[in-house]
């Protein structure tokens, strides 16, 4: 018997990340030099004392499966509990892909029941934040809530992008609107729920019977619980939290790690972010290198300039090459004299000599045409070639003679 287990929704395709999610699920996208997005909720779980996590996958799970493996890097290889990847499956009577977030949980009721938990924590695999779920659980218990939703104050201008709560003086949720045009409040749902399992189980079964339902937590389960006057409370969170569902937000969240005034500290020993890492030698900066305001990890070799950028493992930056305001994922090779500006290079991209990727906004004539450029996994950009700002390329780019 476990008091609280976590279910992590990791099935989304993340189609707004384009070239980055062609071959892997969004939660498996590399982040912050040596992590993947999913490391954040997983590390939060173990740091919060939650030792049982189900990960719901269905889109391109190969990389994610291999990455999670037995859960050892997160100390989640436990005798009872630990981490379990849960794909959809066939049953004696019919079979289905996961239809929505709630349906994904519904299809795994047996899994959850096998731990006989009192509470279930629902997480999603596409947010970057550090949070002590144990405190949220205490809050849930103290409030005697049926469901507790973690909320964050967002700028009023952004309310139309979130699920927005209205609460009474005691923090009890009185209204919930998905992406309202005109919001009543600026308390946004962070997509983190704690349910009393018996209660959730009943609502999942009821929701499944409703043929018209889209089987989604935000659209169906929460409204249904509100309608029948269950006790839903908001748990106010203060701190760093970012949805990294778009190229811009992914770029920003990475860059936030370089900003000392942003409260997201991966060097903090008391709340480590765990990751599965390959065996790589220390990195090496030569006498030619110029590195400032950067994160660099093992296996890198730098002879060029790296500024306001993040190099993942095993990245090579040649002499005279310049990497600025960019995120360079594992195994990329940036040859001599190449320039990378405001770009995200996916794994194993090769940028040949003298090629130029992206642009700096201050050099644009038409600022509307400027944006972060993305180069997909394994792409080679030929010598002297140019890839413009905002481009999303997943094919090799030929040499320019």
């Amino acid at each position, binding site marked *: 018997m476990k008091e609280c287990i976590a279910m992590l929704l990791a099935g989304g395709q993340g189609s707004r990340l384009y070239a980055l999610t062609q071959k892997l699920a969004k939660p498996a996208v590399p982040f*912050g*030099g*040596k992590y993947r997005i999913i490391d954040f909720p997983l590390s939060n779980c173990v740091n919060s004392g939650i030792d049982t996590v189900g990960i719901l996958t269905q889109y391109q799970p190969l990389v994610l499966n291999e990455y999670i493996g037995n859960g*050892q*890097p997160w100390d989640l290889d436990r005798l009872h509990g630990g981490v379990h990847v849960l794909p959809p499956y066939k049953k004696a009577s019919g079979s289905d892909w996961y239809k929505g977030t709630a349906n994904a949980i519904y299809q795994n009721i047996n899994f959850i029941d096998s731990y006989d938990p009192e509470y279930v924590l629902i997480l999603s695999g596409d947010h970057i934040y550090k949070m002590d779920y144990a405190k949220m659980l205490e809050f849930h218990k103290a409030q005697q809530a049926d469901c507790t939703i973690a909320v964050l104050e967002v700028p009023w201008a952004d309310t139309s992008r979130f699920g927005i709560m209205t609460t009474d003086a005691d923090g009890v949720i009185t209204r919930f609107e998905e992406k309202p045009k005109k919001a009543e409040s600026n308390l946004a749902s962070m997509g983190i729920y704690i349910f009393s399992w018996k209660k959730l189980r009943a609502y999942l079964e009821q929701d499944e019977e409703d043929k018209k339902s889209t089987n989604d937590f935000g659209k169906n389960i929460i409204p249904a619980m509100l309608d029948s006057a269950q006790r839903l409370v908001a748990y106010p969170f203060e701190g760093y939290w970012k949805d990294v569902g778009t190229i811009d937000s992914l770029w920003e969240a990475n860059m936030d790690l*370089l900003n*000392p005034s942003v409260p997201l500290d*991966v*060097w903090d020993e008391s709340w*480590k*972010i*765990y*990751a599965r*890492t*390959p*065996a*790589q*030698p*220390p*990195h*090496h*900066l*030569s*006498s030619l*290198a110029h*590195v*400032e*305001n*950067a*994160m*660099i*990890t*093992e*296996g890198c*070799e730098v002879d060029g300039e790296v500024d306001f950028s*993040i*190099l993942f493992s*095993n990245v090579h930056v040649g002499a005279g090459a310049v990497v600025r305001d960019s995120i360079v994922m594992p195994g990329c090779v940036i040859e001599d004299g190449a320039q990378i500006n405001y770009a995200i290079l996916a794994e194993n991209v090769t940028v040949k000599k003298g090629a130029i990727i992206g642009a700096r906004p201050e050099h644009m004539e038409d600022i509307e045409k400027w944006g972060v450029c993305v180069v997909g996994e394994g792409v080679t950009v030929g010598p002297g070639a140019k890839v413009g700002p905002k481009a999303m390329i997943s094919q090799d780019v030929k040499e320019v003679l």
Partner: protein
Amino acid sequence: MVNLNAMGIVFPNMHDSVIPDLTAHRTMASVPFAGRYRLIDFVLSGMVLAGVQNVGVIVKKNYQSLMDHLGSGREWDLARKRGGLKIFPPSGYSSYEYHGRIGALKGILAYIESAKEKYVILADCDVVCDLDYAELMERHAASGADVTIAYTKEKMTPALMNNNVSLAMAPSGRVRELMINDEQTGRRNLSMGVLVMSREFLTETIRSAYSRGLVKFEQEILAKNLDTIKVYGYEYTGYRSRIADMASYFDANMQLLYRENLNRLLPEDRPVYTKVRDEAPVRYTVGCKVKNCTVADGCIIEGEVENCVIFRGVTIGKGAVVKNCVLMQNTAVAPGVRMDYVITDKDVTITEGQYLGGTRSFQVFVKKGSTV
């Protein structure tokens, strides 16, 4: 991965005495090296890469840090149900402290006899290298030798003189003379402390040597019986560093500031495994100046650093100037510090405004846990 059909036996405490500063609280095998490794990592990873799945480690003293480092052996894929890593402490199986290799091996004879592998590789940890154990084994099998000793051609140094085993070989490779602590100068064939033989040969030798009171494998068994025991040499010509004293330890680290050396010792396709510490990437702040450094994860670099090997979790404050140093794990260098030719052991703190300086030939050593 080939199945090598060989088991490994590692001697972590051999040669402890050559670097007493670093082995005061640890074994030679657990001496930190190259930013993120311990010396034993090179031995274990090399063996595992060659398909060895069963390794015994015979410890003698000061081995708590080695046990912490090795854990269950998982990081080297040696946390196994069948075979895997096994640590043998001296008083674990009896109350006497062993003497020499033979004594050590006698204590674990039952373990060696119950193994399934045909061959045994004995290995010390004082030579850092990228030895291809699979090739060594092939050569051993092909030559028909009883024992094959891996060696390097090395210029004799004063430090090596009282801690070496040197070989003289016939053109066939068969060892004609085996000398202990030979003091001849010039280029010599020095044993790497890596010996291959059949398991049967080893167990028979242990039994007969032990009953005759012999404890030194090279000196008392091999050197005196080269006419009856077929001993062959295998020359290793790859990158290596031989740790023979503090100066050679410093040099061995410094050599890794040359990228070609780093790549030869740690080639991309032959990973060296070590204990995972879950460190964040290195953070280089605005205004830092870093030239020619080898840096492991978890560091925060705000100052000026040149020609340094920097281990995991080191912090170097603003305005500090650190040159020609080896800074081990969790060394904290406060703002404004100046350091030149210094070796800091683990968990050292250098407080604000200090100056510590050695020279190219004599490095200042700051011992584990101290605050300067």
